[in-house]
């Protein structure tokens, strides 16, 4: 299959200064040795709790993370971590972002058409007429009316504002769009409108989505494959049916069972895997598996060694000591425990 995005051993570090004058500097590793792939024209969802590093990972892939980034990100075979100037413009045209909050992600002093045109001004050398044509086309594609082009963001509803954000992301005709919680700030009925729109646009323009969300219902509907993150690590990476029908990692199972279900069959299955406590501190990580302190199944070895991401039958990747890899699985270790960053 054709992988459009390939990420290998990607880490993002932030320097944190302790309280007070001259406080000690420490390193916080928000994304820790992450490897994943996304296929062209498909949706890869990144799920996890807040603080798990999912947004940082996606921003690092788009070269937008402010921390120190190491590792390799290939988009269409081209390494983007080392790009500068002109190469970076190429990458910016190819990779665009839709943000979570449609209220703060649009400039309140620009008209809708200027907002949508801005990426074209910055990244392309198209003529005025060409740009105007492109703005019209995508205004129409996201379901806004031409006469709304002259309005300011505050004159739109939340859903319409998100449509402007989508049109802006589409304007450079990218191949990859990073959707960072694109519907979580919207009302439920409006969420459905935006989700349907995103899926329609994906078909129409052959887009590849990196879809960041904490809402497993939305993820299950949108994605083709899923990467589950916990404390900066990927704990499970599988395609949609495998992950939702046969989740392997205890954290994934806990996440899925924590979603309040409308389906009575699901509610009465009675195998809730409840998590206790809060995640550990990223600045003071435990020795073994990062999930062990909250894991209902943890064994002594889980507190000793960090489980590598291993491949199971059918390409299902899991980082857990307790998971049986199945008969024909290879013992390929993707990343052993991460070395301490100096």
């Amino acid at each position, binding site marked *: 299959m054709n992988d459009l995005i390939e990420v290998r051993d990607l880490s993002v570090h932030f320097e944190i200064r302790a309280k007070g004058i001259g406080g000690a500097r420490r390193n916080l590793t928000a994304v820790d040795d992450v490897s994943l792939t996304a296929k062209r024209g498909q949706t890869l969802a990144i799920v996890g709790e807040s603080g798990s590093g999912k947004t940082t990972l996606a921003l690092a892939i788009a070269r937008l993370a402010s921390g120190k980034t190491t590792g390799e990100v290939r988009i269409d075979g081209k390494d983007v971590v080392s790009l500068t100037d002109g190469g970076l413009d190429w990458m910016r045209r190819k990779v665009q972002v839709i943000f979570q909050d449609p209220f703060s992600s649009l400039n309140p002093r620009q008209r809708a058409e200027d907002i949508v045109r801005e990426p074209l001004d910055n990244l392309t050398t198209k003529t005025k007429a060409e740009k105007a044509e492109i703005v019209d086309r995508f205004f129409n594609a996201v379901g806004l009316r031409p006469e709304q082009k002259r309005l300011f963001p505050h004159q739109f509803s939340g859903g319409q504002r998100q449509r402007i954000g989508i049109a802006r992301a589409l304007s450079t005709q990218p191949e990859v769009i990073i959707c960072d919680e694109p519907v979580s700030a919207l009302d439920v009925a409006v969420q459905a*409108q935006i989700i349907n729109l995103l899926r329609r646009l994906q078909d129409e323009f052959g887009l590849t989505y990196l879809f960041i969300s904490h809402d497993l219902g939305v993820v299950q509907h949108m994605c083709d494959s899923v990467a589950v993150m916990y404390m900066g690590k990927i704990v499970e990476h599988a395609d949609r049916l495998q992950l939702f029908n046969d989740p392997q990692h205890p954290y994934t199972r806990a996440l899925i069972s924590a979603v309040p279900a409308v389906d009575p069959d699901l509610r009465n299955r009675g195998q809730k895997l409840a998590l206790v406590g809060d995640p550990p501190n990223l600045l003071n990580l435990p020795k073994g598996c990062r999930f062990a302190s909250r894991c209902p199944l943890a064994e002594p070895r889980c507190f000793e060694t960090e489980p590598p991401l291993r491949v199971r039958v059918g390409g299902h990747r899991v980082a857990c000591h307790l998971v049986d890899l199945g008969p024909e699985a290879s013992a390929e270790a993707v990343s052993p425990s991460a070395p301490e960053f100096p």
Partner: protein
Amino acid sequence: MSFLLKVENLRIELRMRAGVAPVIDDLSFELAHGESISFVGESGCGKSMTALAIMGLLPEGIGRVASGKIWFDGEDLVAASPARLRHIRGNKIGMIFQEPMTSLNPVYSVGEQIAEVLREHQGLSRKAAWAEAIELLDAVRIPNPETRATAYPFEMSGGQRQRVMIAIALACKPKILIADEPTTALDVTVQAQIFDLLRDLRRQTGTSLIMITHDMGAVAEMAERMIVMYAGRKAEEGPVDKVIAHARHPYTQGLISCVPHLVAHLTEERQDLNEVPGIVPGLAEFGQGRCLFASRCARATERCLTTRPEEIAFSDVHRSACWHAEGM
């Protein structure tokens, strides 16, 4: 059957530049002892206003109860004096707000904030209130309550802060607990913990629960009965299982089917989500003599645009305010 809370023909008006708007328009409902009900709807439908009205906390000078009664334990809260309401709030009716980050005082320790409620409402001494606060922190499952009681809100995670809010609301063992979107700001795993906690506490104390939410899944997990609100009016009311299995109002159907729910067995097949087009009307349109949902409704007919739908009862407990309810 005697009700703990009975709201009759409640109308709440908000003063705006363009005149008054009825944010709650002729709302009636009951809450039995120990019962759990949910208010569901999009933002701007009047769910939170209902809660604030019960608490006597409508925005001063802007919102007021124009007509109707709120009977609580045989007493009309609309006519109650501010002093009496102050006594009822906290003692008899507790409330948890949506944002645990902003509804706690950042400059007091959490133990102090719980103890304050006990001193104010139950006249406990400083020492006794502090000891009780620690008990309460333990009851909401905060580890090491003795040391955590001295922590400030910023030192706690979102889930822990919400637990502190619950401890404050339950400090005086209220008869009703109102939870306004208690888990919207939290992660799903933490949400599950909070729901578990609320369920257990309810079992132990017999408190009635009014939960306000937009998440049908949360309703299905937590409530026995639900009231669907739209544009300040009750669209549908009934037992949760019945309404989810067979909603009698197009808005309820829309709310249920527009969300991609997790299913027990996932297949390749993926259909487009059902859309409810448009958005909730602005306050200026509230109170008009027609069905306010008609502009977003696929079933709308001439009658919906000219006459406000009456409530149709399908059983003693299931009612819908839609002209087409019978055909659904």
